[in-house]
């Protein structure tokens, strides 16, 4: 069976995504920094699902390495799922330029660097799928989270353009916009239970949407409507709100 490359494989969402694809028979490349720390997880996937897993040392912000990492894969993947993300506290990012830069680079620049390479290959092969995990935070900038949000907004726009370009090459591109998810990244935040998804739910949603060649996925689904409302609030009101 074909390989799927998961980028940012250490995150809670990525691990559940890996389990869902493994369960459905895909072999996996797990790309992450210090990938050897995923050795036990690799065993877990292989024992559960009788598939092959290869760990790939990959730093999303080490742009110059991306070409050779991709070229060195034994078998080119059928699909790629970019889950890597970096979210710092807004007040920290406002004051420390390095935090802002890291936010932009992990969430946007790095993903673009890697996906440019992969998109070219998929376009030539006229097959494959690309999944990018963006965020509802990219739908509208808010004072509580706009540095992270603007990087995700750029990523969403990139994926939208990519989808447009690759449509005629039969390559599907899925933009994933999770709302609140109960993960290490959100640990300690008081998230409203009814609006908060578990990583396993998000992973299953991603798999279903990707298999159905959907364009945009909000997860939980209700976020599509929450964001619809939020994006339609007139700016002269919105600028005074605290949400």
């Amino acid at each position: 069976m074909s390989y799927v490359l998961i980028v940012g494989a250490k995150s809670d969402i990525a691990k559940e995504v890996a389990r869902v694809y493994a369960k459905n028979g895909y072999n996996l490349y797990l790309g992450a920094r210090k990938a050897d720390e995923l050795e036990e997880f690799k065993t877990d996937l292989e024992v559960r699902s009788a598939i092959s897993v290869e760990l790939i040392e990959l730093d999303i912000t080490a742009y110059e390495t991306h070409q050779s990492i991709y070229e060195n894969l034994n078998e080119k993947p059928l699909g790629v799922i970019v889950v890597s993300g970096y979210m710092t506290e807004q007040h920290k990012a406002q004051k420390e330029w390095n935090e802002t830069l890291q936010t932009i680079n992990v969430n946007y620049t790095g993903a673009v660097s890697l996906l440019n390479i992969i998109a070219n290959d998929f376009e030539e092969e006229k097959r494959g799928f690309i999944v990018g995990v963006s965020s509802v935070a990219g739908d509208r900038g808010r004072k509580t989270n706009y540095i992270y949000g603007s990087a995700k907004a750029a990523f969403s726009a990139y994926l939208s353009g990519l989808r447009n370009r690759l449509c005629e090459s039969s390559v599907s591109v899925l933009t994933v916009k999770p709302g609140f998810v109960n993960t290490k990244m959100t640990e300690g935040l008081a998230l409203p239970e009814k609006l908060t998804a578990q990583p396993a739910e998000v992973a299953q949603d991603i798999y279903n949407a990707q298999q159905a060649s959907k364009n945009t996925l909000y997860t939980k689904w209700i976020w599509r409507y929450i964001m619809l409302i939020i994006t339609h609030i007139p700016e002269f009101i919105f600028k005074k709100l605290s949400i």
Partner: protein
Amino acid sequence: MSLQSWGMYPLVENTIIEFQSQKELAEKLALADELIPYGNGRSYGDSALNDTLVHTRPYDYFLDFDESTGILHVQAGVLLSEILEASVKRGWFLKVTPGTKLISVGGAIASDIHGKNHHIEGCFSECVEEFSIMLADGQIQTVKKGEELFLATCGGMGLTGVILTAKISLKKINSQFINQTTIKTKNLKETFAAFEEYKKDPYSVAWIDCLAKDENIGKSLLMVGDFADDGDLRYKPKSKLNIPFNFPSFALNTLSVKAFNWLYYWKSKDGVSKQKVHFDSFFYPLDSIRNWNRIYGKNGFTQYQFILPKESSFDGLERILDKISKSGKGSFLAVLKLYGKENANYLSFPIEGYSLALDFKIEDGLFELLDELDEIVVECGGRIYLTKDVRVSKETFELGYERVETFRAFRKKHNMSEKFNSLQSKRLGL
């Protein structure tokens, strides 16, 4: 957010400890005063509740599976459902499974769960080759069958430590289907006779109509079966129906219970019938409805499960069923089963005899009724299942479990009594 038990009663606030590594757990354990391990929250009562819980569910890696011997090595948070997803297509199945697959391996050991084949295969501990456990001082011990710590931990309700990993042996199957025989009986006497007649079938359980009165008391559907042999192992778990909110508690009135029981009683033709059913519907009929516990309303519910020695089973059950039927406090589910021999574990529930399990929504007068039922159970020399219990008295409990002092002494000797406690263990002085 707090974790609750399956019965959603009592609702308590708690602090949740999670861990990624054994080192992390040892550090957190040292800082905590008193805690109890919590797996997937499928025990019904207060056996996995306290102010501080160690949530073991996220500790869920598969470590190894030897397909030549069928020995599976997993971390304790792995669910039985996950094991089946991995094993059925390779031709392996759990040797012992309860009526839900949504329990963790750690929970299965701590409750020493049993299933429809108890009369043949015994409890879950039979298939546990070894396990590792973190004790009160943070030390990790690997425990093999027969050792004292094994006897105390299997059925020990998480009161000996935090189970970390386990090696369990699976059994070979050659189909995902079960050849089922359904036997319709008119009363308790017929039900008992049917259990004896079909004793050699590996799986058996009866659904009993506990609202039946007088000469119909004990009327049941006995379902027995074994795995088919058609080579079909293409297992794909189905998605689940969700009950997204609590039903108003009047939803479970006598009428709906009657309708439910009626359905189960009449779905099979007169006497004996045969069906081929999927193992999921044979073993786990309620798992297809996620959160079915919400059907009992927001006050929660409890499951009353007791077992009586074989010689006193008939009289005892007749008296208990009569009392329940007269009380009008209907049970949505009533499950009757013949069990095999008792094992040597200190607190494992099964003894040779008949067990009945019934659900009750929490309401005024319920605990008084259950106390009355307890009296009959005690008179008959029976006992209550701790995994389901939320209210049994210390006295009733002690009269049922003759090895309780051995368990207490063991806990004390190894400094477990202070570190590991649940609301239940404090109520029962364990």
